[in-house]
């Protein structure tokens, strides 16, 4: 009984934290010569806004040799499933 309570307590405390952290953005990026494009989904660590997502992704993609074109939208866990197929190999990769 006590264990259940503790676990419940744990869940109660941790839920808002996880809800705050679960922020994702889908974006479009490119590579030049020859032109290559990709659509991907990535997790965002900071505030869940498009501008912050763009800032974060820019540096992350730059390291992999990609140029960020734009951030389409930011969303939480509920939006992940529908974008998994489209993103393909770039799903949560960067």
């Amino acid at each position, binding site marked *: 009984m006590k264990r259940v309570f503790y676990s419940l307590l744990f869940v109660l405390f941790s839920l808002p934290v996880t809800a705050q952290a679960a922020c994702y953005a*889908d974006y*479009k990026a*490119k590579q*030049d010569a*020859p*032109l*290559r*494009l*990709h*659509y991907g989904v990535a997790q965002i660590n900071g505030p869940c806004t498009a501008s912050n997502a763009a800032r974060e992704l820019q540096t992350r993609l730059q390291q992999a040799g990609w140029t960020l*074109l*734009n951030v*389409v939208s930011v969303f939480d866990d509920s939006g992940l499933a529908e*974008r998994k*197929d*489209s*993103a*393909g190999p770039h799903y949560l990769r960067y």
Partner: protein
Amino acid sequence: MPDLITSATDARRSGTRIVAAGIAVIVGLLVIAGVGLFVTLPDANAFNAKVEQIFVENDDLTSQAEVKLLEILAQSGTAFSDTLAGYRTTIFVLLVFATAMLVAALVFLVMLVGLNRRMAQIERSGIQVNSLIVSREENTVYLNTMGFKLTDAMMETVSILAEARLDDELLSGAQIEAIISGRLESDCEEAAGATRIKRLRDGLGNQLVSELLIKNIARRGYMLAIDKDVIEVL
């Protein structure tokens, strides 16, 4: 008609100036055309930029197949722009040819103008003797294509003058008289030679003028042998 008084040297100098300026203008025009051509033809990246723009502007173009398709589109565009680069070279070569042709045309044009001027000068300067044939048998002197009948005495004088000219010599009246009469120069009078020259001038001059200027048409009358457009009475 402006600037009637021009010398051949003037014409040549101004001709060279015109040629230089003309060539500069032609080359300048074609350089501008070439630069315009190179600037206006789409560069190799134009297709990629367009595809990229389409990709960014359409939020629903996200599935893997669509993105792949866009990439292929960009690649075929790039291939086409290679073809365009080939065309550009071709057009450039044609431009160079056009330049050469225009320059040649200009040079020929200027040459033609120069020749025309020279012709006009020759016409203005009157009779130009290209050939002088002294025919003793026929008692005739041929100037260019015109033949002039002379008396025996005049023929002698002309022959002596021609021979002296060939030797680059000057003859005094007394010398002429001495050669013709076969006497010593000291026995001859200057006036006698001068008379011979005067007779030659009269005889030849009359015929020359009648040939070139005042024609006598037998039994009909006299006429100026010139174009009526050139006559001006002040």
